């Protein structure tokens, strides 16, 4: 009898509902849908120039300066370069001797006929005020004159 009563008593003790209410809470969630993002900006504000006034200037590469750029990409990326010899930016059209002269950006020769990949990476990138070196080489002899061109740089995700 006593065992039965004690057993019932213990069982009821275990099953007595608690008077303490649980603290209220809110369970929330966040979702982000992220797509490919790329930013490419060339910061140069003036032209890169070089004057060939000595014999030794010809036939060798000269550093015209650098392309200063910002590049941000959260996916694989590549940048194309191509010479434009038109009237853009007030320049004189068709005065760049693309067949004889060599212009390179970041060590890659670029030309007027087709774009070339001058830089790429399968990984995301975040570059600020980064530099690509621009070199030009003109073989001897070359007649007196002033030539200009533009370098079109295009970034894309891969």
């Amino acid at each position: 009898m006593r065992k039965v009563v004690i057993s019932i008593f213990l069982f009821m003790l275990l099953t007595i509902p608690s008077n303490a209410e649980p603290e209220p809470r809110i369970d929330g969630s966040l979702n982000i849908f992220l797509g490919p993002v790329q930013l490419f900006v060339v910061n140069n504000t003036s032209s890169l120039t070089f004057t060939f006034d000595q014999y030794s200037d010809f036939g060798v590469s000269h550093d015209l300066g650098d392309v200063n750029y910002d590049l941000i990409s959260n996916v694989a990326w590549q940048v194309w370069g191509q010479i434009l010899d038109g009237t853009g930016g007030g320049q004189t059209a068709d005065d760049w001797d693309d067949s004889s002269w060599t212009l390179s950006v970041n060590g890659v020769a670029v030309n007027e006929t087709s774009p070339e990949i001058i830089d790429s990476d399968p990984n995301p990138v975040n570059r600020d005020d980064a530099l690509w070196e621009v070199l030009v080489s003109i073989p001897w002899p070359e007649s007196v004159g002033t030539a200009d061109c533009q370098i079109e740089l295009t970034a894309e995700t891969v």
Partner: protein
Amino acid sequence: MHHFLGRGRMQRMSFSKTEIFPDICRYGRRLICSACIAGRTSLAFFLAVVIYLLYTGVAYADSESNSGISIVISDVKVLSVDADSLTLSPAAPEVLSGWTEQQTWNVTICANVEWALTIRGTAPTWDGPWLKPVGDIFFSSGGSDFAPVETESTRVCTGGPSDNEVRPINFKIALDPLKDIPGEYFYGYIVLEFETL
């Protein structure tokens, strides 16, 4: 020890099973007197009363007290939010700026006590293309500076007794284009909790 019922009172006295109360103890070797049964019944009754009081939560300390009304008001806190999920699709300018646009949860609070609202994340990282840390989630309330959500509770705001008081909680997510590659990121482990002060 057996029991003897005296005049109006329960008394106890020692005697042998074979002594002078054969009518009380007459069940052979396993003698159980009626008084013993009464004693065990009393134990059962006592336990029953205790159980009843535990269940009802009501105890009358003095049978001579005046009758009246007893009201127990417990601490009551109610928490609700207008939306418990946020979906963000940051455009390029946001990614490049390093932050998503700011989003707001309007938390409505009813409480009859001094309270604090806390926030925490129950997982250290997001689900997604990479293990984006929970600390990339930032919150602010009441004009405070944005602070990262952690796996430990952080106090968001405090207040006193209130009735449907709305407290906006602003969220924004830190973005890093070097790490946050395209894809879907999910963090379903934000917990807002009340804390009684």
